[in-house]
């Protein structure tokens, strides 16, 4: 078992498993957000459930944060190890001749996604934690009313053009990250069966989900 923890294969498998976990989470996140396009009330109900359910808050949320932190930290650790594996660089290296830009620049797309996540956490997560666990208001309602606050707060965030642009750039880089990362995760855990189907599914996921998030951001910006 000690070999499993120390080896290069174990590290890539760990990266792959955390990636697959985040891919599943992203689908769930998108599903909840997409509700906001159709129904303010349904979005509020879904958000209130996710924000107050003890299982989600105290089990799934910490696991998710651990998963995100692990994926990013391991990504940077692997990049540092890989850089050390070639201390003298080529004076001419034509990487584009044999590998896609996405596969060669996962750290670049990952760093942009990390910056996006910083803003995203500041926008929503820090605010939620403050209201619920610092101020102790678990009701989820707008003070003085009986209306749930989630849709209104989220809608207001997308009034700022620069925030919308930054979100769109973040999702575009997320798409590039997933175009390589989705199928790569399956390769890392040794899954080669249904290879063509996995690549196609990965391409669809990598385009549809980020585009969907961009659509949601633009929808709320336009409907201000």
């Amino acid at each position: 078992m000690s070999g499993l923890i120390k080896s290069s294969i174990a590290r890539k498998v760990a990266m792959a498993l955390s990636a697959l976990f985040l891919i599943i989470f992203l689908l769930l996140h998108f599903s909840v957000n997409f509700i906001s396009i159709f129904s303010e009330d349904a979005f509020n109900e879904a958000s209130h459930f996710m924000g107050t359910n003890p299982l989600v808050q105290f089990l799934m949320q910490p696991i998710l944060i651990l998963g995100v932190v692990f994926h990013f930290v391991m990504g940077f650790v692997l990049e540092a190890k890989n850089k050390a594996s070639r201390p003298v660089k080529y004076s001419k290296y034509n990487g584009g001749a044999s590998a896609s830009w996405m596969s060669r620049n996962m750290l670049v797309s990952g760093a942009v996604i990390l910056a996006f996540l910083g803003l995203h956490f500041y926008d929503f997560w820090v605010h939620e934690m403050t209201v619920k666990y610092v101020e102790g208001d678990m009701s989820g309602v707008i003070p003085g009313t009986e209306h749930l606050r989630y849709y209104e707060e989220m809608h207001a965030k997308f009034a700022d053009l620069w925030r919308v642009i930054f979100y769109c750039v973040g999702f575009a880089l997320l798409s590039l990250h997933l175009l390589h990362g989705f199928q790569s995760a399956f390769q890392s855990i040794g899954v080669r069966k249904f290879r063509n189907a996995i690549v196609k599914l990965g391409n669809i996921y990598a385009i549809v989900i980020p585009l969907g998030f961009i659509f949601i951001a633009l929808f709320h910006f336009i409907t201000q």
Partner: protein
Amino acid sequence: MNLTLKIWRQKDSKAKGQMVEYKVTDISEHMSFLEMMDVLNEGLVAKGEEPVAFDHDCREGICGMCSLQINGEAHGPDRGITTCQLHMRMFNDGDTIVIEPWRAAAFPVIKDLIVDRTAFERIQQAGGYISINTSGNTQDANAIPISKEAADKAMDAATCIGCGACVAACKNASAMLFTSAKVSQFALLPQGRVEATERVMNMVKQMDLEGFGNCTNTGACEIECPKGISLENIARMNREYLAASLAKS
């Protein structure tokens, strides 16, 4: 054709190397790349200069000795070939060609364009074999049924010539394609299954000890490999390694 060559020159493993520019003239498009290098060296020797050191042996694309990074690509711009099979018709009159050794911490430069690839041999020695009885009473190979698919895949993996192009092409200098080919050629056959657990554990351990990078599945190794070794082998090695780790724990 007339060409400008920018070549890495390094006196020995401890010396500081540098790119040096040379001109070669009247190069035939029918020459192989190594023949063009021979022409360069003949000119250097005639002038009393030190010829450029580069690895070569069979010059038929099967020994795995030639190992040049040409214009940023392992074995040059053509596909499915080694440097000795690269022909000058792939270049144009007046081109500048950059020629460098494989770059990897695990492949230190010995001289000029020659690198030490014994790291591959140590990986092979760590488990790339089967312990069979060769005392004269070996079993008839045909007595063990093997499916055509398994035999073909094992043979495809066994075509790896260990040239190191996979390491050279990989942005991480990873040796996973080489190691996985050597693991796969045995893992796919019943004779190799007996020692499969120890083999994959020991070979991966040695691969990591040599200082190769981590695979990030860019696929560059598969594209640049002169023998077309598939990424499928890396996935197989990952499966073998995980199963072996869990079995041993």
